[in-house]
Each structure stands twice: as structure tokens, then as C-alpha cells.
């Protein structure tokens, strides 16, 4: 989009460019160099191979190692965070800095707002990767406070524009779009389809996209409705079972939030004839795909998102580099065709090993 606009965080203008992370995170030096190129800055001095001794990308940047990079979020009990935390830790290892996730266990907007407020008050905060997915107006004053304190904030789960340094994540339409394509192809363009998700603001937005894309792309498919659960496995299973009982002729369902993979087996038992598409890459879901019980799963890999999401913070703090306005991480579709490769190596591109270059 290449639209220039003032940078409200701090030091220098932000280039409003979209940088798409190609494939699953190429977490080594090549990926970081590519990122810096997109930033418009130079590459860090002698970036080394990922994990190699003395080869940290932080070398030469004078990294502030006593500071911590925080991921502020909510619903920490969700299995979704397993891969995301792995990505965050990888960032910490690569750059030699401290990282920490904070927030309430449940899908609790007030708790998440409080966690953001408390994080801003910490003396050691270097930057914040914010998963603030609720109405931005509720947190706007906190984002403004961060800007005043020159604490860079990168948005993750939803983007509200400035004041923030950058957005790293997926567009709301990406996962629904991939799910629609997967379901439409599997049904041969004909049948009945439903949706279930939690009541999170971003999930509700995505449900609308799912319905819209289904209508636009597959006129022979009827959208029979949606169900919503409270974020617990107990309620999700209850709602799903009631929904497929009500719609016994439903041919496919999209479980639109990250809880689905962890309860994949129980969902399949509720109606084994339903072609089920999940959201996220929990091991239970992947095993069910491998066994042919589940059609597939779609999502960005949160590992990619968190690994890349912290980098703009690091380079803003340690090198005054401009950051892309948006970095869209890829939405990955895993089906029976590619599930084995994904399970074997969920975080890397399969096929080309750039990191083996001298």
C-alpha cells in the first residue's frame, strides 16, 4: 500500500508497507535480513545462523538486555498459546533478550486491559506485543500512554491503527477464506455448512467473513447458521452437539476458534459424517487429520506470529529502524495431504533449507 504517514510512537517516520512473511517462519538470519530489508534499515552487523554461538542478530545493535519484551493477552488457558509461546521464546533466544507473557487465564477483556496497564507501569518494559482484541476505545488511553513513554506497541490479534508501531498477524478474512475454500472443494460446491466459534470480537468478525465468502464462492452451498460457546471445552462440546443435532443434514462445519483441535475426537464422535475444519494446530487435531477423521485445519501458525511480532519492537528499541505498518503472517492449511510434514516440522518451510547456506 506504500502510504506514508506520521509515526506516533517515536523516532522517525513509519513506512506503511505490508510485509508478508513467506511460508512458515524462516527463523534464521535470512529471515531477519529479509525483515530488515522490508524495514528499510540496514541489516544488523554480521547476523549469524539461528542459534549459533555468537551469531545473535543482536550483535552490533547494543541490545538493552536488562529490559523485557512483554506479550499482553488474555485467555491464557487456551491450548492456542502453546505454539505462540514457543515463537516468543525463540525470539528471546535469537536476540538474547528477556520475554514474558502476561494476562488473565480467561477470555477476560477487563483483565487484559488491567494487564496492559500494569505492564506499562513496569520499569523494565522494552516493548509490548499486544493481543488486545476487544474494542480499541477501551484501551486507547493506554496506547497513548505507551506512546508518551516511548514504549513501542505492536498489535497482534486485531489492528486498530495508530498509536502503535506495527501490526503483525492475520487479516480477519484470511482463516475464513481458507476454510471456505477447503470446505467448498471437499463438498464439490454443494451442501449445507455451519459455523461454531467463541464470542470473542475477532471471532465474531471472522464468522461474518466465513458466511460472506461461502455465499460469494459457492452458490450451491447453504449456510445453515452458527453456534457460539463460552470458551470452555465443556460448553463448546455441548453447543456443537446441539447444533449438529438440530442440523442433522449439515455436511460440513468450521470450528472457527483455537479450542477445536484439543477436543477434535469428541467433536468427531458427535457426528462422524460431518466434514470438520478446525482452527489451529493442536496435536490432537493434527492426529485426527492424520487419521482421516477431520478434513483439515486452517490458521496462521502462532509461532510465526509471535516470532515475527516481537521483531519490530526489538529493532525500534535497539536500532531506531522503521517497521512495516503491517506484517501479514501466512494462513496455513493442513489436510491429510501435508499433515505428516507439518507434524514433523511445524515451524519451518518444508523443502528449502535457507539456513544451510554458508
Amino acid at each position, binding site marked *: 500500500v506504500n502510504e506514508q504517514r506520521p509515526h506516533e510512537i517515536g523516532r522517525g517516520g513509519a513506512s506503511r508497507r505490508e510485509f508478508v512473511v513467506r511460508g512458515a517462519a524462516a527463523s534464521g538470519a535470512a529471515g531477519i535480513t529479509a525483515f530488515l530489508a522490508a524495514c528499510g534499515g540496514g541489516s544488523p552487523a554480521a547476523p549469524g545462523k539461528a542459534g549459533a554461538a555468537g551469531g545473535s542478530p543482536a550483535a552490533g545493535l547494543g541490545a538493552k538486555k536488562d529490559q523485557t519484551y512483554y506479550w499482553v493477552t488474555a485467555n*491464557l488457558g487456551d491450548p492456542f498459546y*502453546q505454539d505462540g509461546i514457543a515463537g516468543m521464546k525463540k525470539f528471546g533466544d535469537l536476540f538474547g533478550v528477556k520475554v514474558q507473557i502476561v494476562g488473565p487465564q480467561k477470555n477476560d477483556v477487563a483483565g487484559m486491559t488491567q494487564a496492559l496497564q500494569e505492564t506499562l507501569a513496569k520499569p523494565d518494559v522494552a516493548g509490548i506485543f499486544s493481543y488486545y482484541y476487544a474494542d480499541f476505545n477501551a484501551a486507547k488511553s493506554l496506547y497513548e500512554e505507551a506512546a508518551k513513554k516511548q514504549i513501542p506497541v505492536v498489535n497482534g490479534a486485531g489492528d486498530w491503527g495508530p498509536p502503535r508501531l506495527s501490526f503483525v498477524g492475520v487479516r480477519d478474512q484470511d482463516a475464513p477464506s481458507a476454510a471456505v475454500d477447503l470446505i467448498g472443494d471437499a463438498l464439490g460446491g454443494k451442501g449445507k455448512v455451519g459455523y461454531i466459534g467463541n464470542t470473542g470480537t475477532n471471532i465474531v468478525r471472522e464468522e461474518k467473513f466465513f458466511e460472506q465468502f461461502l455465499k460469494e464462492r459457492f452458490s450451491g452451498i447453504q449456510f445453515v447458521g452458527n453456534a457460539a460457546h463460552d470458551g470452555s471445552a*465443556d460448553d463448546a462440546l455441548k453447543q456443537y452437539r446441539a447444533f449438529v443435532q438440530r442440523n442433522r443434514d449439515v455436511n460440513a462445519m468450521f470450528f472457527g476458534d483455537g479450542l477445536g483441535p484439543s*477436543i477434535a475426537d469428541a467433536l468427531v464422535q458427535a457426528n462422524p459424517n460431518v466434514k470438520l475444519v478446525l482452527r489451529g494446530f493442536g496435536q490432537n487435531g493434527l492426529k485426527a487429520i492424520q487419521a482421516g477423521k477431520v478434513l483439515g485445519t486452517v490458521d496462521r501458525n502462532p509461532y510465526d506470529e509471535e516470532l515475527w511480532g516481537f521483531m519490530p519492537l526489538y529493532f525500534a528499541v535497539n536500532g531506531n529502524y522503521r517497521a512495516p505498518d503491517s506484517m501479514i503472517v501466512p494462513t496455513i492449511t493442513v489436510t491429510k495431504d501435508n499433515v505428516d510434514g507439518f507434524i514433523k516440522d511445524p515451524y519451518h518451510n518444508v523443502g528449502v533449507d535457507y539456513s544451510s547456506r554458508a
Partner: protein
Amino acid sequence: VTVAAADPGTNLPAAGPSAAARRSVARRFLGSRVTALALFDLVFIAAIGAIEPDFVRLENFKVIVENMALPAMVMVPTVYLLAAGRFDLSVDGVAVLSGIVAGLLLKNEGAPTLVALVLGVGVGFAFGLANGLLIELAGLNPLVTTLGTWWVAMGLALGLTQGYSPFGFPSGFTAIGQTKVLGVLIVVVYAVVFVAAMAALLGLTRFGAHVYATGGDREAALLNGVKVKRIGVVLYALAGTLAGAAGVIFAARLGTASASAFDGLALDVIAAAVVGGASLTGGRGTVLGGLLGLFLLNLFGSAAIYVGISPFWQKGISGLILLVALVADALADRRQRRPPSHLGTQAGGEGSERAATT
């Protein structure tokens, strides 16, 4: 079952039919909360069935009963805690932690199924016992204490798993939750056995009469030799044990142990018990009433999907049902406490009868 036995251990009068005998059988039958609720459930089913005939299929009721089986196991001790003038908010957390302990023992330690099962349920017992000792012996407030133990349990669940949900349990363990008996999930069998045993224990024994006495008038119960504190400890331990059992069985049913397995279970079962006639001030409550209350709430959840009520309205309407039940309860209570004009003295209400029917 009417508690009619004399109570040789105390000076308490037997919870017999002294007051009830003065009423006609028909009047008692029509005037009881259980009957009213059963009739309401039937009318509700008929009304929804008239709108959506599919709703009254046997298969749908099977799903509803399977869905309410585990909550019913938690609801029963809740009824008796309420009858004894107490409550427990920690059951969600305890259930989650018990499932996770069992899951981690199976996956990480390679523990045999029986060991995982016993230790998982044992965690529930330990938390219940801790609640009982803190509240009854140390005199701590039940609300704050059980809220605190809920936090501890959820915190331990998250800390032990770090967001990871153990899965891939041995078939011997998953059979505990996934086996079907005559086409119905085995969890229904567990629930029937537990509920019947608890109902008999508390409805037919001296202990049960003491529970109602404790909640009806604590001081009077003490003066009559009832070991009020001991009863409280036993009830909390029972609540914890059954929450633990529910958590372990749910993990077996899902094939995974998730930190987000339950959300709001404690409030759901309290709501069901109150809808079923249990009093928050103690002295009243029946297992059958609680079951019918739970059935109504689950019926509503299913019916909402059948008649197409938006999932975003469902909680609100469930709340309205609860409020209507509370208002009806208050009105009925007031009417029963009004002195009959021909006696000129205060008549014992349902509470003074201890409603010792199950």
C-alpha cells in the same frame, strides 16, 4: 424419599411428615417445587416441540442427558452444600486441575490408568477437604475461601501445563469417558449411580437430616447436638471429590486434559440447584429439584439452537429463567410463612420441614 426416621443421636425431632401430614397428598404434590418444575419442563418441551418437532426426538434428549451428566455429579453435592447453608465456587478449577493431574500422570509419568484416576480424583478430595477445614475450622468466609482455592487450582493447572494440553491417553483411560452402554455414553451411568448414591446417603440417613438441620437453623442444630462443623467438612470434601471425578472423566471423554475444560461450572450448578428449589440461605434443596433445574437449563440451551435464538442472547435468557425462579421462590416462601388465619400462629414453612425429600 421422605426422611421419616427418628434421630436417636440428637434431640432433633425426626424430619417426618408431622406438618406434611396435615396437608392432602394432592395439595402437597401440586404445591411442591419439584412438581411445578417437572410440569414446567414438560410444558417447555411441548412448546418448543410445537415450533420445531425435531426437538422432541429421542436422540436429542439423549444428547441433552449426556451433556448434563457430569454437571449433575457436581450439582448434587452443591445442593447439599446449599441445604447446609454453604456453597463452593472452586469446583470448576478443581475439576480442571484433577483432569490435568490425571492427564500429566498418564502422559509424562507413564502412570497406570488406575493410579492416574485415583490421584486425579484425590486432588479433588484434597481441595475439598482444604475448603472444609479452612471454612469450618479456621472460620474463613466460604466465598473468599472457595474463590481462593479456585484460583489456586486454575493457577496450578496452567502452571503445570504451560498451556499444553496432554493428550493421547491409553485406551483404558479414554474408555472411562467414551464407552457407550446401550447407545448412551457411560458418563450417564456414572451420573445415575453417583446421584442415586448421594441422594440415598443424604436423604435416607441421619447424616442427611443433620445437613438440613445445619442449614435450617445452625444454632438450633448445635444445641441439639449436631456436629455442624464436621458436616461442613464432609460436604466440602464430597464436593471436591465429585468435582475431581467429573474432571477426570471429562478428560477421558475428550481424550485430552485442557486448562479450559470448564468455565462457570460452579455458577451453573448453583443456578440449577436454586431453580430446583434450593435456598441460598440454607435448609432447603432436593436432588430431584436440582436435576430438574439442570435439565431445564440444558433444555433451554438446546431449544435456543432449535428455534434459532442467537447464541449471543442465550446467556441472558438463561439468566432470566434463574431470576424468574428466584422470584417465584421468594413469593412461595413468603406465602408459606404467612400465618394461616384459622391458626393464628406462625406455621412452619417448607424450610422448617427441611424439605427432606429427594
